[in-house]
């Protein structure tokens, strides 16, 4: 596919006869894409399509117009971001309608805390397993959620991922800015870097919303216990299996 994204827009629009829109989003829409960035494209239609193509280097995010509108009005920042900064590649009317109906919705920073906490537990789990690469990647998502939460709470609309560090530095979080940049771009990181990242993420999430953190952590503890029980059952059922049980 060429870099003007018109091929992607044409391919997606062929998936439906319905009213639809193809919108370039993410760092590419902001002109901040690096060679490691995906090209993120939002595909909005009035009805569901059967399959979304899978193409290396592209991430197609599908949404029905109704779902998009519902999530926007619930305070999700992703949809608000797309409306603000998305670049229209093709619009049969759906995008104009969404823009006209919901121009002034300000996302709820509290939602970013919930997303950040859930992702933090996943990052911690991967780190405990010893998968530093995966933990690092999940941690970048966590710090992104935190940065966006802090910015929204401060009345600043978050830009694309490569621009977040400068934005959070400006509102007084230089360590978060440095950490996010290092995790995103450093060639290699130590286990200590990951451990510090996990710890600082927890601190910031508690700082943003202590009650939500505590409630989700309590739920998570129950889930972990349930998972441990399931794991024990699986290992028992695997007796005689080709694998040795994992110690």
């Amino acid at each position, binding site marked *: 596919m060429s870099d003007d994204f018109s091929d992607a827009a044409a391919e997606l629009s062929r998936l439906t006869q319905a009213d639809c829109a193809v919108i370039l989003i993410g760092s590419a829409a902001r002109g901040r894409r690096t060679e*490691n960035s995906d090209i993120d494209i939002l595909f909005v239609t009035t009805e569901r399509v059967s399959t979304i193509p*899978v193409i290396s280097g592209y991430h197609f*995010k599908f949404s029905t117009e109704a779902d998009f509108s519902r*999530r926007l009005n619930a305070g999700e920042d992703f949809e608000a971001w797309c409306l603000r900064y998305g670049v229209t590649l093709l619009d049969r009317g759906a995008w104009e309608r969404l823009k006209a109906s919901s121009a002034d919705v300000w996302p709820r920073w509290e939602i970013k805390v919930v997303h950040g906490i859930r992702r933090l537990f996943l990052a911690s789990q991967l780190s405990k397993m010893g*998968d530093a690469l995966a933990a690092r990647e999940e941690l970048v998502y966590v710090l992104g959620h935190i940065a966006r939460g802090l910015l929204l709470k401060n009345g600043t609309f978050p830009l694309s991922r490569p621009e977040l560090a400068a934005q959070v530095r400006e509102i007084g979080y230089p360590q978060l800015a440095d950490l996010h940049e290092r995790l995103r771009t450093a060639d290699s990181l130590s286990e200590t870097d990951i451990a510090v990242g996990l710890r600082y993420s927890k601190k910031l999430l508690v700082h943003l919303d202590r009650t939500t953190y505590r409630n989700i952590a309590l739920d998570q503890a129950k889930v972990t216990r349930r998972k441990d029980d*399931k794991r024990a059952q699986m290992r028992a059922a695997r007796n005689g299996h080709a*694998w040795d049980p994992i110690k």
Partner: protein
Amino acid sequence: MVIMDLGEARRHLDLAKKQWESAACDAWAPEDAAGCVTNAFYAYENLVVAVAEARGREWEPSHYKKAKLAAALFSEKLLITDVSETILTLNNLRKDVSYGDPGFELADANLGDIVGDLEAFCNEVESIVATLEQEGEEEGEEDE
């Protein structure tokens, strides 16, 4: 020149098994689709890396390059299963989750199938690594 490293291959394989376990738990009721696809995605990548290490092939920490490597290992008959498309699909599902919205594709995904396919691929890679380990041990004994 890249030298095969069976120790690293085993380490990645063991990581993948732990991630398979987590994905399998997430697939049981009450389902955690986000946790399941994320763990499954990293497990597939670790399995491809395990084969690359076992066969002395270079790999890079890029999702698309790992998917490409999976296709190459399949076309060279070093893998029976081509998991390149699965890696790309799971990567997309996982990214949908990162936006805070699992999306209909994930809501429709059959987690049992995802975990079942992953288990079969784990077994395939286990067999490759175990065979090479066995051969390595036998060569070591002959040298002694």
